[in-house]
């Protein structure tokens, strides 16, 4: 057991990067994830606690927020996904649970998801082929849950020319194939 070593969602030792035309697709494996769902009637308590203790103001419907080293995006009514670097916050869920106590249910999500950051000009052309999300009208700092390559994914617009795709880890290979195929079709 002592010889186990971590692998990325695509199965490699190091995160994979593909450059196709103007598009760069980077596997992101260095982020810890935890979901936070406010318990009934406790949403304001959750907001207050996270704002007081880690300076993060939880985003409203469809938005994302940053408070380095933490980021958060809205996933549903009174529910959010929080991310932070894995290196420094491997136990993100326990940290958040300590902060939030009984006001929220916190679930470790790190190994449930894979993430690809897709960057470059022509980003919207690519995602138009992959999903029905209105990517052209999505501003930086917004996130949407939709389908891509038959998978339920989050699209998180980090910047004008950078979108993070967060999808079920066990389907990383299929999503990666879909991203590559869409990138090649517009290259």
């Amino acid at each position: 057991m002592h010889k186990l070593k971590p692998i990325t969602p695509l199965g490699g030792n190091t995160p994979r990067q593909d450059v196709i035309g103007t598009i760069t697709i980077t596997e992101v494996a260095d982020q810890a994830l935890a979901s936070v769902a406010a318990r009934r009637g406790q949403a304001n308590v959750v907001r207050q606690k996270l704002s007081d203790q880690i300076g993060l103001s939880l985003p409203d419907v469809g938005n994302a927020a940053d408070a380095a080293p933490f980021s958060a995006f809205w996933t549903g009514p009174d529910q959010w996904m929080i991310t932070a670097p894995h290196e420094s916050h491997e136990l993100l869920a326990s940290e958040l649970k300590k902060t939030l106590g009984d006001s929220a249910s916190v679930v470790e999500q790190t190994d449930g998801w894979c993430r690809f950051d897709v960057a470059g000009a022509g980003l919207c052309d690519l995602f138009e082929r992959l999903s029905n999300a209105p990517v052209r009208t999505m501003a930086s700092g917004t996130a949407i849950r939709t389908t891509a390559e038959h998978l339920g994914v989050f699209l998180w617009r980090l910047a004008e020319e950078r979108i993070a795709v967060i999808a079920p880890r066990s389907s990383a290979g299929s999503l990666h194939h879909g991203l590559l195929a869409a990138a090649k079709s517009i290259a």
Partner: protein
Amino acid sequence: MIIDHPLLGPRDAQEFTYLGDASLINRPDWQSENALSEFHDYLYLRDNPAGEHRELWYHEQGDRSWLVVTRNTTTHEILNVELAHDVAKAAAAERSAQ
């Protein structure tokens, strides 16, 4: 079809799954004296209107909220969309006011 989600705006119907008649929200009390017949009615008796129909939709590939959608079954026109959460709360408030 496009469903105009109360929180997220217009979303493609392929992101949703359909459950059925919105009356499914009003689950009978299992401890009531007539529980057996109430559950029979709850489970088996449905109206099947040609026209306006209130039904439950689940935004599975989205924010995972349950919606009450009023849809015309003959034209597929969507007339109203509410969060099931709000509908259930309003119904409970109405019941306690009686």
